[in-house]
Protein backbone atom coordinates (compact mmCIF):
# COMPACT_ATOMS: atom_id res chain seq x y z
CA UNK A 1 0.00 0.00 0.00
CA UNK A 2 1.14 3.54 -0.82
CA UNK A 3 0.32 6.43 1.46
CA UNK A 4 -2.05 8.83 -0.30
CA UNK A 5 -1.27 12.08 1.54
CA UNK A 6 2.01 12.97 -0.24
CA UNK A 7 0.29 12.57 -3.62
CA UNK A 8 -2.60 14.76 -2.54
CA UNK A 9 -0.26 17.50 -1.33
CA UNK A 10 1.99 17.43 -4.39
CA UNK A 11 -0.79 17.29 -6.99
CA UNK A 12 -3.39 19.47 -5.26
CA UNK A 13 -5.92 16.65 -4.90
CA UNK A 14 -8.99 17.57 -2.82
CA UNK A 15 -11.42 15.34 -0.96
CA UNK A 16 -15.04 15.47 -2.13
CA UNK A 17 -16.26 12.85 0.30
CA UNK A 18 -15.13 9.88 2.38
CA UNK A 19 -11.69 8.94 3.60
CA UNK A 20 -8.74 7.03 2.17
CA UNK A 21 -5.26 6.74 3.66
CA UNK A 22 -3.56 4.53 1.14
CA UNK A 23 -3.89 2.88 -2.25
CA UNK A 24 -2.41 -0.07 -4.05
CA UNK A 25 -2.03 0.53 -7.80
CA UNK A 26 -3.85 2.84 -10.20
CA UNK A 27 -6.39 2.34 -13.00
CA UNK A 28 -7.36 5.12 -15.38
CA UNK A 29 -10.37 4.84 -17.68
CA UNK A 30 -13.98 5.86 -18.18
CA UNK A 31 -15.81 2.92 -19.69
CA UNK A 32 -17.62 1.22 -16.83
CA UNK A 33 -17.50 -2.39 -17.95
CA UNK A 34 -13.76 -2.06 -18.60
CA UNK A 35 -13.24 -0.44 -15.21
CA UNK A 36 -15.38 -3.15 -13.63
CA UNK A 37 -12.92 -5.83 -14.70
CA UNK A 38 -9.69 -3.82 -14.35
CA UNK A 39 -10.05 -1.85 -11.14
CA UNK A 40 -8.55 -4.11 -8.49
CA UNK A 41 -9.14 -4.05 -4.77
CA UNK A 42 -7.29 -1.10 -3.24
CA UNK A 43 -6.76 0.70 -6.56
CA UNK A 44 -6.99 4.43 -7.06
CA UNK A 45 -9.39 4.82 -10.03
CA UNK A 46 -8.89 7.94 -12.14
CA UNK A 47 -11.82 8.95 -14.35
CA UNK A 48 -13.79 11.90 -15.66
CA UNK A 49 -17.09 10.05 -15.24
CA UNK A 50 -19.07 11.51 -12.37
CA UNK A 51 -22.45 9.76 -12.37
CA UNK A 52 -23.91 7.39 -9.82
CA UNK A 53 -22.84 4.28 -11.74
CA UNK A 54 -19.19 5.14 -11.07
CA UNK A 55 -19.94 4.79 -7.37
CA UNK A 56 -21.53 1.37 -7.86
CA UNK A 57 -18.49 0.15 -9.82
CA UNK A 58 -16.03 1.60 -7.28
CA UNK A 59 -17.93 -0.13 -4.51
CA UNK A 60 -18.16 -3.50 -6.29
CA UNK A 61 -14.49 -3.38 -7.30
CA UNK A 62 -13.34 -2.32 -3.80
CA UNK A 63 -11.46 0.71 -5.13
CA UNK A 64 -9.60 2.62 -2.41
CA UNK A 65 -10.83 5.87 -3.94
CA UNK A 66 -12.14 7.47 -7.13
CA UNK A 67 -10.08 10.41 -8.38
CA UNK A 68 -12.06 12.74 -10.67
CA UNK A 69 -9.82 14.55 -13.16
CA UNK A 70 -10.23 17.93 -14.90
CA UNK A 71 -11.98 19.51 -11.92
CA UNK A 72 -15.03 17.30 -12.35
CA UNK A 73 -17.35 17.02 -9.34
CA UNK A 74 -20.00 14.41 -8.52
CA UNK A 75 -23.63 14.73 -9.58
CA UNK A 76 -25.90 15.15 -6.51
CA UNK A 77 -27.21 11.57 -6.62
CA UNK A 78 -23.67 10.24 -7.07
CA UNK A 79 -22.54 12.24 -4.03
CA UNK A 80 -25.44 10.85 -2.00
CA UNK A 81 -24.57 7.29 -3.12
CA UNK A 82 -20.87 7.77 -2.32
CA UNK A 83 -21.68 9.03 1.16
CA UNK A 84 -24.13 6.22 1.79
CA UNK A 85 -21.70 3.53 0.57
CA UNK A 86 -18.68 5.13 2.24
CA UNK A 87 -16.77 5.54 -1.03
CA UNK A 88 -13.91 8.04 -0.97
CA UNK A 89 -14.05 10.46 -3.92
CA UNK A 90 -11.24 12.89 -4.72
CA UNK A 91 -10.92 15.65 -7.30
CA UNK A 92 -8.07 17.44 -9.06
CA UNK A 93 -7.84 20.06 -11.81
CA UNK A 94 -5.35 18.21 -14.03
CA UNK A 95 -6.37 16.02 -16.98
CA UNK A 96 -6.02 12.24 -16.62
CA UNK A 97 -2.62 12.02 -18.32
CA UNK A 98 -1.08 14.68 -16.10
CA UNK A 99 -2.42 12.98 -12.99
CA UNK A 100 -1.07 9.61 -14.10
CA UNK A 101 2.32 11.12 -14.97
CA UNK A 102 2.38 13.05 -11.69
CA UNK A 103 1.54 9.98 -9.65
CA UNK A 104 4.07 7.84 -11.49
CA UNK A 105 6.71 10.50 -10.95
CA UNK A 106 6.14 10.41 -7.19
CA UNK A 107 6.11 6.63 -6.87
Amino acid at each position, binding site marked *: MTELKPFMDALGIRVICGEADAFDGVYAG*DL*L*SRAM*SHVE*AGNLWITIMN*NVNVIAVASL*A*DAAAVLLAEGVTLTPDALA*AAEEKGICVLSAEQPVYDLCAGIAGLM
Partner: protein
Amino acid sequence: MHEPVTFHFDVDGENFSSAGEASVIIKKKLRQLGFSPDIIRRVSIAMYEGEINMVIHANGGAADVTVMDEYIEIVLSDKGPGIPDVELAMREGFSTARENIRALGFGAGMGLPNMKKYTDYMKIDTEVGVGTKITMRVNTTG
Protein backbone atom coordinates in the same frame (compact mmCIF):
# COMPACT_ATOMS: atom_id res chain seq x y z
CA MET B 1 -25.65 -30.82 2.07
CA HIS B 2 -26.73 -27.39 3.19
CA GLU B 3 -30.08 -25.83 2.34
CA PRO B 4 -29.51 -23.55 -0.66
CA VAL B 5 -29.62 -19.85 0.25
CA THR B 6 -31.67 -17.83 -2.24
CA PHE B 7 -32.07 -14.14 -2.98
CA HIS B 8 -34.56 -12.47 -5.32
CA PHE B 9 -34.48 -8.95 -6.71
CA ASP B 10 -36.76 -7.01 -9.03
CA VAL B 11 -34.52 -4.84 -11.16
CA ASP B 12 -36.14 -1.52 -12.06
CA GLY B 13 -35.72 -0.56 -15.71
CA GLU B 14 -36.40 3.13 -15.28
CA ASN B 15 -34.07 3.92 -12.47
CA PHE B 16 -30.41 4.40 -13.38
CA SER B 17 -29.61 5.68 -9.92
CA SER B 18 -30.29 2.36 -8.27
CA ALA B 19 -28.78 0.30 -11.11
CA GLY B 20 -26.29 -2.10 -9.56
CA GLU B 21 -28.01 -2.18 -6.18
CA ALA B 22 -28.84 -5.89 -6.33
CA SER B 23 -25.18 -6.67 -7.05
CA VAL B 24 -24.05 -4.52 -4.14
CA ILE B 25 -26.44 -6.36 -1.78
CA ILE B 26 -25.31 -9.78 -3.05
CA LYS B 27 -21.70 -8.80 -2.53
CA LYS B 28 -22.44 -7.92 1.09
CA LYS B 29 -24.32 -11.19 1.65
CA LEU B 30 -21.50 -13.29 0.17
CA ARG B 31 -19.05 -11.52 2.45
CA GLN B 32 -21.21 -12.37 5.45
CA LEU B 33 -21.34 -15.98 4.24
CA GLY B 34 -17.53 -16.03 4.29
CA PHE B 35 -16.69 -16.50 0.60
CA SER B 36 -13.17 -15.63 -0.61
CA PRO B 37 -12.52 -12.21 -2.18
CA ASP B 38 -11.88 -13.86 -5.56
CA ILE B 39 -15.27 -15.61 -5.63
CA ILE B 40 -17.02 -12.45 -4.44
CA ARG B 41 -15.30 -10.38 -7.11
CA ARG B 42 -16.26 -12.77 -9.89
CA VAL B 43 -19.89 -12.99 -8.80
CA SER B 44 -20.05 -9.20 -8.35
CA ILE B 45 -18.69 -8.46 -11.83
CA ALA B 46 -20.90 -11.01 -13.58
CA MET B 47 -24.03 -10.00 -11.74
CA TYR B 48 -23.41 -6.26 -12.12
CA GLU B 49 -22.96 -6.57 -15.89
CA GLY B 50 -26.11 -8.68 -16.21
CA GLU B 51 -28.10 -6.38 -13.98
CA ILE B 52 -27.02 -3.28 -15.91
CA ASN B 53 -27.82 -4.97 -19.22
CA MET B 54 -31.37 -5.60 -18.04
CA VAL B 55 -31.68 -1.93 -17.07
CA ILE B 56 -30.24 -0.42 -20.26
CA HIS B 57 -31.30 -2.97 -22.88
CA ALA B 58 -34.44 -4.66 -21.52
CA ASN B 59 -36.31 -2.16 -19.34
CA GLY B 60 -35.59 -4.15 -16.18
CA GLY B 61 -36.19 -7.72 -15.08
CA ALA B 62 -35.53 -10.10 -12.22
CA ALA B 63 -32.34 -11.41 -10.63
CA ASP B 64 -32.22 -14.63 -8.64
CA VAL B 65 -29.12 -15.80 -6.83
CA THR B 66 -28.81 -19.24 -5.28
CA VAL B 67 -25.89 -20.23 -3.09
CA MET B 68 -25.40 -23.99 -3.29
CA ASP B 69 -22.75 -26.29 -1.91
CA GLU B 70 -20.66 -26.34 -5.07
CA TYR B 71 -21.50 -23.15 -6.89
CA ILE B 72 -23.28 -19.83 -6.79
CA GLU B 73 -25.92 -19.51 -9.50
CA ILE B 74 -27.13 -16.19 -10.90
CA VAL B 75 -30.24 -16.15 -13.09
CA LEU B 76 -31.24 -12.91 -14.81
CA SER B 77 -34.57 -12.87 -16.64
CA ASP B 78 -36.21 -10.08 -18.55
CA LYS B 79 -39.10 -9.49 -20.93
CA GLY B 80 -37.04 -7.15 -23.09
CA PRO B 81 -36.45 -7.20 -26.86
CA GLY B 82 -34.28 -10.33 -26.83
CA ILE B 83 -30.88 -10.68 -28.52
CA PRO B 84 -31.13 -11.32 -32.29
CA ASP B 85 -27.55 -12.58 -32.74
CA VAL B 86 -26.02 -13.96 -29.55
CA GLU B 87 -22.64 -14.72 -31.13
CA LEU B 88 -22.35 -11.10 -32.27
CA ALA B 89 -23.52 -9.76 -28.89
CA MET B 90 -20.84 -11.85 -27.14
CA ARG B 91 -18.03 -10.19 -29.13
CA GLU B 92 -15.84 -7.74 -27.28
CA GLY B 93 -16.73 -4.23 -28.39
CA PHE B 94 -20.18 -4.99 -29.82
CA SER B 95 -22.81 -2.66 -28.40
CA THR B 96 -26.16 -1.25 -29.41
CA ALA B 97 -26.16 1.23 -26.50
CA ARG B 98 -27.53 4.63 -27.51
CA GLU B 99 -25.63 7.88 -27.23
CA ASN B 100 -27.33 8.99 -23.99
CA ILE B 101 -26.38 5.68 -22.36
CA ARG B 102 -22.81 5.85 -23.67
CA ALA B 103 -22.48 9.29 -22.13
CA LEU B 104 -22.85 7.58 -18.74
CA GLY B 105 -19.90 5.29 -19.44
CA PHE B 106 -21.77 2.23 -20.71
CA GLY B 107 -21.45 0.77 -24.19
CA ALA B 108 -17.90 -0.60 -24.25
CA GLY B 109 -19.40 -3.87 -25.40
CA MET B 110 -17.59 -5.68 -22.60
CA GLY B 111 -20.50 -6.69 -20.35
CA LEU B 112 -21.35 -10.08 -21.87
CA PRO B 113 -17.63 -10.93 -22.45
CA ASN B 114 -16.96 -10.10 -18.78
CA MET B 115 -19.84 -12.31 -17.68
CA LYS B 116 -18.38 -15.18 -19.69
CA LYS B 117 -14.82 -14.55 -18.49
CA TYR B 118 -15.56 -14.37 -14.78
CA THR B 119 -17.96 -17.32 -14.50
CA ASP B 120 -17.47 -21.06 -14.87
CA TYR B 121 -20.71 -21.59 -16.75
CA MET B 122 -22.93 -19.26 -18.76
CA LYS B 123 -26.03 -19.98 -20.82
CA ILE B 124 -28.12 -17.47 -22.76
CA ASP B 125 -31.73 -18.29 -23.64
CA THR B 126 -33.21 -15.52 -25.70
CA GLU B 127 -36.05 -14.95 -28.13
CA VAL B 128 -36.61 -11.78 -30.08
CA GLY B 129 -39.74 -10.00 -28.85
CA VAL B 130 -40.06 -12.31 -25.83
CA GLY B 131 -37.07 -11.78 -23.56
CA THR B 132 -33.75 -13.06 -22.33
CA LYS B 133 -32.72 -15.42 -19.56
CA ILE B 134 -29.06 -15.68 -18.61
CA THR B 135 -27.85 -18.37 -16.23
CA MET B 136 -24.35 -18.13 -14.78
CA ARG B 137 -22.48 -20.22 -12.24
CA VAL B 138 -19.34 -19.57 -10.25
CA ASN B 139 -17.83 -22.69 -8.68
CA THR B 140 -17.03 -22.36 -5.01
CA THR B 141 -15.14 -25.59 -4.47
CA GLY B 142 -11.60 -26.54 -5.54
